[in-house]
Each structure stands twice: as structure tokens, then as C-alpha cells.
């Protein structure tokens, strides 16, 4: 790629100095509750947390009695300067870490966290130096977590940037932050929300359940001609299908920011 591409990359990514410095912190579980049948919402009080931008993540490290450690990344559903950090964790059935976090973790438990991490998959309000370009958010399943943080930051700042969220889930029971998203759609910062249900729709839904298609993406996403910045988060398969279609639909690859969770 040419030097021009490097220059273009300069214009869209945030500078590294704008995110708080990452470090290891002791976190106390303040509250945990069921978010969906397979996920928990976990609120942490993180000692010394420097705050985080919307869209960042953290790593949680668990250490067994024999010294074995396992570390996993989780997106943060909250943003701003608070030391209260909100996560929403999906149970990966054969996972080493997530079943513990979803099914065993209780208020008062302690965790080791590393963060805030990642300055690439973040969004900032115009008032804080962010881009005024429209924003298309596309979530597959638990990929909603960082995108919810971004939409909440948009509403909290009463930011005028046009936002649209396309949220693909298996069934209506699998929607994360359902009440919060409904409130964001009604807030004054402009946000339109569209849903795609892959296995079961709400009653009376106009289209049958099915995986997201290129046609659905074309119908629901902000057109490439409006030059949106597009954030896509979900399983690796979901993200790569959607990103390929976005490029086919005329979006510049440099305007597409992706975050893959792995899996299928």
C-alpha cells in the first residue's frame, strides 16, 4: 500500500495519547445479574481504574490454586471516568473463563483485570474531538456490548451525529440491554435501531427468522455514499461476512472497524 494509505489511516484512528494508560487492577464484583439466558451483566468496582473510552475492552485473569492462569478479553459496556465498570459476558459452553464469570461469580468476589485496552474500536463525541461522520453500528449477539457503550456515550453527550444500529440476535430473549437500547432510541441524540432474528422472531414480525443477508444489510445500513464510519462486532464468521458485504456495497475498507470474538 502507498504512503497515502498511511496518511489516511492517520485521519481516522484516534491518537494513542487519548486513551487512559492500561494497567493491572484489583476489581471487586459490585453486582451480577442475568442479562439473557446465557449471559450475565457484571458490575465491577476497579481500584485505580483511570476511566475508559466507549468501545474499549479489558482482560480478566483467573489464577487457579495450582498457579494455572487463564486470561480472556471482555468488552466494556460503560465509558467515562467512573471506577465502576460494567461488563456483559456470554457463557461459552466449553470455555475456561466465561462459565465461571456467568454462573459462579458473586458480589464481593475479587478479580484481576488489565485495562483499559484498545484504542482502535472506540468512538468519541464531536465535542471531544471525534469525527462528525455518521456512524453505523453492526452487532452480532454479544458483539452488542462495545456498541452499546458507544451508543450510550453518543446519547450521554447529546451528540448530533446520525447513528444507526443493526443488531442481529438468535431470538428476542437473547437481546442484551433491551430496555437501555429502547431508551437510547427515544433520546435526543439521533439513533435508529433495526433487528435481525436468526432463529425466532417476536410475534407478528414481518419477516421470517433467518441469518443476516447482504440484502438485509443493504436495506438497514447507512449507504456507502454517506461515508459512515462502520463498527462491526461479533463472532469471527459474522464479522467477516458483514465486512465483506460492506466492501461489496461500496464502503471503503478503512472506514470499517471490526472486532472479532472468535467462535463460528
Amino acid at each position, binding site marked *: 500500500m502507498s504512503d497515502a494509505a498511511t496518511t489516511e*489511516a492517520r485521519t481516522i484512528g484516534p491518537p494513542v495519547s487519548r486513551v487512559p494508560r492500561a494497567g493491572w487492577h484489583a476489581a471487586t464484583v459490585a453486582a451480577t445479574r442475568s442479562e439473557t439466558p446465557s449471559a450475565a451483566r457484571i458490575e465491577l468496582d476497579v481500584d485505580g481504574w483511570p476511566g475508559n473510552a466507549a468501545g474499549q475492552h479489558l482482560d480478566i485473569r483467573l489464577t487457579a490454586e495450582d498457579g494455572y492462569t487463564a486470561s480472556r*478479553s471482555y468488552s466494556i459496556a460503560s465509558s467515562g471516568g467512573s471506577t465502576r465498570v460494567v461488563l456483559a459476558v456470554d457463557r461459552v459452553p466449553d470455555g475456561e473463563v466465561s462459565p465461571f464469570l456467568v454462573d459462579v461469580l458473586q458480589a464481593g468476589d475479587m478479580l484481576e483485570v488489565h485495562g483499559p485496552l484498545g484504542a*482502535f474500536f472506540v468512538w468519541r463525541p464531536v465535542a471531544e474531538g471525534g469525527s462528525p461522520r455518521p456512524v453505523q453500528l453492526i452487532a452480532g449477539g454479544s458483539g452488542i456490548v462495545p456498541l452499546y457503550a458507544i451508543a450510550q456515550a453518543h446519547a450521554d453527550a447529546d451528540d448530533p451525529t446520525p447513528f444507526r444500529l443493526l443488531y442481529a440476535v438468535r431470538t428476542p430473549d437473547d437481546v442484551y440491554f433491551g430496555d437501555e437500547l429502547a431508551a437510547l432510541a427515544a433520546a435526543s441524540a439521533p439513533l435508529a435501531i433495526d433487528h435481525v432474528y436468526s432463529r425466532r422472531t417476536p410475534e407478528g414480525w414481518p419477516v421470517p427468522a433467518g441469518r443476516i443477508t447482504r440484502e438485509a444489510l443493504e436495506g438497514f445500513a447507512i449507504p456507502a455514499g454517506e461515508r459512515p464510519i462502520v463498527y462491526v462486532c461479533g463472532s469471527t464468521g459474522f464479522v467477516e461476512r458483514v465486512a465483506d458485504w460492506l466492501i461489496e456495497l461500496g464502503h471503503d475498507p478503512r472506514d470499517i*472497524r*471490526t472486532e*472479532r470474538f472468535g*467462535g463460528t
Partner: protein
Amino acid sequence: MTGHVDGNAIAGPLADFFSFDITTASGRCKGCGTVQEFARTMVYVSGAGSVVRCPHCDNVLAVLVDTGERAWIDLGGVSSIEVRR
């Protein structure tokens, strides 16, 4: 975790080596010359560590190994790194 993830996932492990968030830094692939943010790379995670590959030519850009006691990185597939201040 099965399959691959992307460079966002190694922000934590890379924080052991760099004093800034490297996922927004751009690296030049020694294989094909493409310059891209580390967040856009493909990352294959195994028990021992992570292999970071160029999404365009599949060249191995970096290998990370973490034993708990020690962390090691090979950046042999990257010819230059650009950081935005």
C-alpha cells in the same frame, strides 16, 4: 476459542512490551508491504501464545509467547512501526 480473532485481542499482551496502545499503531508487512493498524491483523490464539498474521498475504507478522513468568515477542514479519502521538 476456535479459529482466529483480530489484533484488538492482543492489546493486553502487547501492553507488556509497549508504553502505548499498539493496536492503533501501523505496521508494515515484510511480506507484501501493506501498512495497516495492528487492530486489523488476524490473530491465532493457542495455549502457548498468539500468532499475528497479515490479513492480505498471511505472512507471520509477530509471535507472542507468555509463560506467566516471562513474555516474549518476535516481530520478524514487521519492517517498520508508525505510532501516532
